[in-house]
């Protein structure tokens, strides 16, 4: 394992940020720490980096106990949400920082910095100052700076959080491609489940200082072990004890067994996807997701009375395995 955390606890005053967290991150993987704000994901990342000391528990990097090792000697690369660019240095000097600290020969530094600047597509920007770069460029510079010291792990704390939506999408695909090229073990923190699913090979879902579930994106989506994971990873409707994914909610024009009467409140068209917002007689709201073509075939309209039937639903027993109910006849 590249990184193992064993029973990490961290408290800030009365607030328990980490409540006995253990994770394993394999070599060369791309892992997302996903959770709402205050779930402890950033604290966990900072504990791994050595920027925060756990009250108890251990951090192992490449099998060696690094718990007492200061950040300076851990050999991790850290990328901050707000870039933490050295404002008084050019892009070149920013990227070279770790290498000059290590007193590498000048020629070697220049060569490596050139390569890295090319890797993050900042050719031609080497002599600019951070203030002359866009947010996305600054974050790419921060990445090159972190990669320059050839870290054993790369840690990114909400790396795209401060960027515009389209830059964010572009950068996360770029990060995934970069990871394919560089293969450095990478952990990134995000509160955006779509981002986590898009980029990561492994997702660790955190809530209230604990780990809810870890697994592949698909595994988490299809086999959530708790209500929290079900509702945090992917969209969900709740009807009584049942959790229903919007794409598992079928809309029928005629009554059928298990189908409930509902009125269409609104139809939202999002490109190829259509969202049908429903109001049930008891006042509850649900929504169904279908393709544009499916919606067109049904000829749905606002105010129409339809019948909603879950194809599939999850029920979480208080003490036991969650169970999937296949309801609709195929």
């Amino acid at each position, binding site marked *: 394992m590249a990184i193992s955390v064993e029973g990490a606890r961290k408290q800030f005053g009365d607030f328990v940020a980490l409540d006995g967290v253990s994770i394993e991150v394999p070599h060369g993987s791309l892992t997302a720490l996903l959770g709402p704000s205050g779930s402890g994901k950033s604290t966990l990342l900072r504990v791994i980096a050595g920027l925060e000391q756990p009250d108890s528990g251990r951090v192992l990097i490449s099998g060696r106990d690094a718990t007492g090792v200061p950040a*300076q000697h851990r050999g991790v690369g850290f990328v*901050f949400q707000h870039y933490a660019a050295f404002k008084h240095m050019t892009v070149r000097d920013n990227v070279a920082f770790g290498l000059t600290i290590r007193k590498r020969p000048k020629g070697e530094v220049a060569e490596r910095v050139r390569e890295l600047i090319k890797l993050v597509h900042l050719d031609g920007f080497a002599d600019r100052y951070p203030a002359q770069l866009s947010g996305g460029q600054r974050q790419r510079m921060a990445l090159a700076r972190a990669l320059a010291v050839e870290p054993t792990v790369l840690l990114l704390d909400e790396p795209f959080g401060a960027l515009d939506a389209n830059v964010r999408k572009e950068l996360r695909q770029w990060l995934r491609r970069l990871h394919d090229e560089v293969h450095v073990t990478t952990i990134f923190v995000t509160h955006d489940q779509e981002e986590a699913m898009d980029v990561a090979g492994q997702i660790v879902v955190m809530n209230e200082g604990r780990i809810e579930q870890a697994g592949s994106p698909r595994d988490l989506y299809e086999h959530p072990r708790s209500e929290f994971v079900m509702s945090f990873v992917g969209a969900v409707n709740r009807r009584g004890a049942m959790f229903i994914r919007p794409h598992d909610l079928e809309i029928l024009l005629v009554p059928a067994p298990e189908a409930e009467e509902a009125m269409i409140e609104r139809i939202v068209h999002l490109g190829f996807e259509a969202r049908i917002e429903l109001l049930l007689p008891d006042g509850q709201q649900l929504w169904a997701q279908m393709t544009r073509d499916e919606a067109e075939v049904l000829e749905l309209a606002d105010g129409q009375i339809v019948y909603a039937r879950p194809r599939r639903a999850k029920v979480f027993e208080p003490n036991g395995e969650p169970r999937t109910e296949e309801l609709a006849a195929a």
Partner: protein
Amino acid sequence: MTARPRLGRYGLRFFALGYLAILLLVPVGMVAYRAFEPGIGAAWDSVTTPDALHAFYLTLLMVAIAVPANTIFGIGCALLLVRTNFRGKTLLNAVIDLPFAISPVVIGLSLILVYGAGGWFGDWLLDNGIQVIFSIPGMVLATMFVSLPFVVREVAPVLQEIGDEQEQAARTLGANWWQTFRRVTLPAIRWGVAYGVVLSTARALGEFGAVAVVSGRLSGQETATLYVWKQFQNFDVAGAYAASLVLAVLAVATLLAMNAFNRKEA
């Protein structure tokens, strides 16, 4: 554009400039005028007498010791206040402002109480052959005391504003404490430091009350401000004005030098 806001704007400018003129420019201008009234040669002669030169030397000595000492202390203290948490932080924060709050004369008297004959350390120091009060070490202490808060108060808000992410980044990149400070923190706070140094220098150049008390006004222990006062009392008004002008020129030169330095940096 209507006429009234424009009138208001000009009125405000007129008020601000008039206020500055009456309070600052006219008196300083008068000093310059009166200094040169007897002629440039006479003014030059009056500031190059051995007494005058010695007074300027002492003033520069005060600045040369007090300003670097307070700069180092000030940066360290600002780091302590902004970057760390400890018991007594609020107290330290309040104590730093004491020199602003206490009258310089009182500062001088308090130094005599501690370091003078019969004071807490005074007798011990005298027994070991170190005379602090009515001597140059005491004057240096007084100058350091009155110019102490400036660097702290200029640097602390800048440290607060830049945050500590750059420092954390430097640490994860392998920099130790000193490398982080020298290569990341110091360049980021240099404007605050520069401004603090300018203010400390101006204050150290101009200090009168505290230094007057601890110097005992003995001859040979006069800084430039004490010299100005002495000449004034001895009816050498032109000499007093000429020396004042030199002090003013020194202060302005510090400001300009710092500006030039900053412009080159930026």
